[in-house]
């Protein structure tokens, strides 16, 4: 899922300067799971911004709504309708959702409430960790299901750098991560060993084709069978 983090209230207030009727639109999929953009967080943010505007002496009317997914055009019908009554929309979706909504609202500005951060998983309650970079050339089958592109700080493809200490990546020396960042390659080796597939490491991977990872411009998938 996509993980994001709310922008500061100060940045949001500055973004919304001059607008008197604003719709907050949440998304109940990825950003709800990462506790930053679902209907609960939309309600929290609306109340907090209401207080901020009242403290600043600004008369602003805030409305709230939320949809299952903002990245699906058909799901946006009700949000688009609600947006006709306001001057601006503050979207709590990820970047994809913000843009999908903005594409449907030509005359109403759409602002992002979140900074979209990464693809990841809920490692434990309240902790979301990046584990996919969308590199477009998934090699997880060869690394025991542990991604060296997203989980190795150096994105090494053919083994550890040798800087790990007690199973932890050397970047922990520069910053106190909680939880600490494990050495992805140590995890890969341990995993392949438990799978009885350590020999996979002897297959040297060639240099990565980063054009598949976005270095070649905006990516797309087109399925003729889906285009009705």
């Amino acid at each position, binding site marked *: 899922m996509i993980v994001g983090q709310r922008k*500061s*209230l100060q940045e949001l207030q500055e973004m919304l300067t001059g607008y008197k009727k604003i719709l907050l639109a949440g998304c109940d999929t990825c950003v709800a799971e990462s506790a930053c953009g679902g209907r*609960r967080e939309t309600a*929290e943010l609306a*109340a907090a911004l*209401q*207080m*901020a505007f009242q*403290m600043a002496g600004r*008369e602003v009317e805030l409305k709230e709504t939320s949809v299952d997914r903002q990245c699906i055009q058909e799901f946006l019908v009700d949000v688009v309708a609600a947006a006709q009554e306001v001057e601006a929309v503050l979207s709590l979706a990820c970047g994809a959702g913000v843009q999908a909504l903005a594409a449907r609202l030509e005359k109403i500005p759409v602002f992002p409430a979140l900074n979209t951060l990464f693809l990841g998983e809920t490692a434990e309650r309240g902790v979301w960790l990046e584990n996919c970079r969308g590199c477009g050339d998934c090699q997880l089958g060869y690394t025991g299901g542990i991604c060296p592109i997203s989980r190795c700080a150096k994105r090494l493809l053919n083994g550890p750098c040798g800087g790990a200490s007690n199973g932890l990546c050397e970047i922990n020396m520069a910053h106190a991560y909680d939880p600490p960042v494990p050495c992805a390659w140590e995890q890969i080796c341990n995993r392949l060993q438990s799978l009885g597939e350590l020999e996979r490491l002897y297959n040297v991977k060639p240099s990565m084709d980063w054009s598949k990872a976005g270095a070649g411009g905006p990516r797309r998938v087109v399925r003729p069978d889906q285009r009705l």
Partner: protein
Amino acid sequence: MTPKPEVVVLACTQAVPQPSALRQALQEVGISGRIIQEPCSSKVEAFHLLRILAKGADLVWVVGCPEQYCQLAEGSTRMGFRVAHAQSYLAELGLEVARLGFSRVAAGSPEGLAATAAEIQLRLKDLPPNPARPRPAA
């Protein structure tokens, strides 16, 4: 004349089976507040607390059960986290985090209710009227 502070208490029905008892404890320290009963303190969301403050309350309080006695297992524990999360918004806004608080009271305990009322009274002493309340219409 200084307006009376607006206090809202969200009280778990297990911790406060008789809201009148809590009301009396508050009145004994000079506070008249609105008491809202909740099926469990864990049903109180952070946005409830923030909305009540945005509507003009000066202080919002949640009463739950002692953590080990919560009938919904982790409910009372989670309530504490949610109050803290709502307080983080207040801190970001430059508002006093003391406008939100909670206490854990064994089922209907008169001592627990009295202590809750005393703690609310203490908080209110240093709290000015809520600067984030809606302005009256001109």
